[in-house]
């Protein structure tokens, strides 16, 4: 088996096989429910099979590409910036990464639009398209800025060696304290915005940044200090969006 892995001709086959194995459970669940529980045939079987083929190919390319491209690039950057020892540039870099990956995130754009509709029907904002669009845009900026701030503080935390759980638990307490004051229409949006902000592209890069930093600063353990950036980046949007809601709509 080991010699098979080394053969360069066969290696792509194993990558594809691994991706297929990762996707198998979800296909089985969806097909099983469709055929056994709902007892209906698939509406478009050909398109479905084509789509699954694209999924497998896409997952294979994505994970190979990350290992070849963005992972080493991000790791090398984190190393180089840390070795330079310039705290300002490191902070700017962390903020830029957080902001730039979040502001264009498709899932966030979709959710901000949805949240604007909710706010409009609840008469929290003025009716009309332009007010909705402005609200959605502000929401996206609030989330992007909060992810940037989270990464900035996360990098400072790694450099200074503050324990990660103080920050996360502090964040939890802030969320719990803010919730009673936030208007109920924004609570669901705020809670979900944290999960939505951290996307497929952001997460691997953030982890590379944290682990890269922690492994080249003396006295930091990459396992203990390197992780935790993503968790903080999905906590701050909750706080900031709720704060934005309180600021905008007042205490109700």
């Amino acid at each position, binding site marked *: 088996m080991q010699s098979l*892995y080394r053969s*360069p001709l066969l290696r792509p086959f*194993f990558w594809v096989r691994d991706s297929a194995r*990762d996707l198998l*459970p*979800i*296909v*089985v669940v*969806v097909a099983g*429910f*469709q055929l056994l*529980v*709902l007892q209906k045939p698939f*509406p478009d079987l050909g398109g479905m099979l084509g*789509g*699954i*083929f*694209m*999924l497998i*190919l*896409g*997952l294979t*390319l994505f*994970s*190979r*590409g*990350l*290992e*070849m*491209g963005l992972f080493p*690039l*991000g790791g090398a950057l984190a190393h*180089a*910036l840390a070795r330079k020892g310039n705290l300002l540039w490191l902070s700017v870099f962390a903020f830029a*990464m957080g902001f730039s990956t979040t502001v*264009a995130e*498709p*899932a966030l754009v979709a959710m901000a639009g949805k949240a604007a509709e909710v706010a409009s029907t609840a008469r929290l904002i003025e009716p009309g398209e332009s007010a909705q669009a402005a609200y959605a845009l502000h929401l996206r900026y609030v989330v992007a800025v909060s992810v940037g701030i989270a990464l900035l503080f996360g990098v400072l935390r790694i450099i200074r060696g503050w324990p*990660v*759980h103080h920050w996360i638990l502090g964040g939890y307490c802030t969320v*719990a304290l803010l*919730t009673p004051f936030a208007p109920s229409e924004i*609570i*669901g949006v705020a*809670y*979900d915005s*944290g999960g*939505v902000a*951290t996307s*497929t592209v952001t*997460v*691997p890069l953030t*982890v590379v940044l944290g682990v890269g930093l922690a492994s080249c600063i003396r006295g930091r353990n990459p*396992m*203990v200090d390197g*992780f*935790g950036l*993503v*968790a903080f980046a*999905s906590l701050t949007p909750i706080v900031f969006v709720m704060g934005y809601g309180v600021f905008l709509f007042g205490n109700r």
Partner: protein
Amino acid sequence: MEILLELLSALAGTFMDLVPIVAAMVGFQLLVLRQPIANWRRMAIGILYTYIGLVLFIVGLEKSLLPVGEAMARQLSDPLFLFNAAQAPPDALWSSYGWVYLFAALIGFSATLAEPALLAVATKACDVSQGAIKPFPLRMAVATGVAIGIALGAFRIVTGIPIAYCIVTGYVVVIIQTCYAPRMIVALAYDSGSVTTSTVTVPLVAALGLGLAATIPGRNPALDGLGLIVFATLFPVMTVMGYAQLVECLSMRTVARRRNAPPLPKRCGLGRKTKTDEHGGR
């Protein structure tokens, strides 16, 4: 023809998603560090792979699993399927939605296993811990957490318990667990929750929540439909810490027995290939 249009729009959308980050990295490399990028050809090919892979993944998802999953979430919460009536009876018990909970749990579990971001993080964790944290059990622990979380979230929508109560209770459990969990896993456990909620899970879960809230009497989709995702980010934290506690407990018991046995080989990199592969590639 239609699929070509979709591919093109996904190409453009993903480009907008990837450009800022690549620009930030290359900009810092060239302007702040003023160093050429080492091995830049291989990296460019890798970024191209990432881009094409993400586009194919998104279009494939929209072609195959998403429409079926969304239709299924609608059908499973349809009163016609659940009660054989046009409208859900107002006195329906929470237990009559059994299929919904089962579907929520299974879809959470399987979508998490397919999540590319989780795969990447699990690989990194294996590398960093020098093989102590194996990717597959970690992903299983996270998937179990997401399954429990989404099933509970569906239960919350059905019963109408305010979301803040559930989440704050969850926070308290996490705080208590943090005190007892092995220190090495704490940060990774926090991260593993947020990692799961990206490309695959979010659309499926959001569709399930909105569909449920729309059909259950007395629920407002605007107020109750959102808020499933936060459940999916909270429960993996608990299961990953619980898993680490379990492993620590078991290994303490067997450590005396195994003291003379040779160490197990370390296997990283997507769980299957060996360390040598990283340097032996093209």
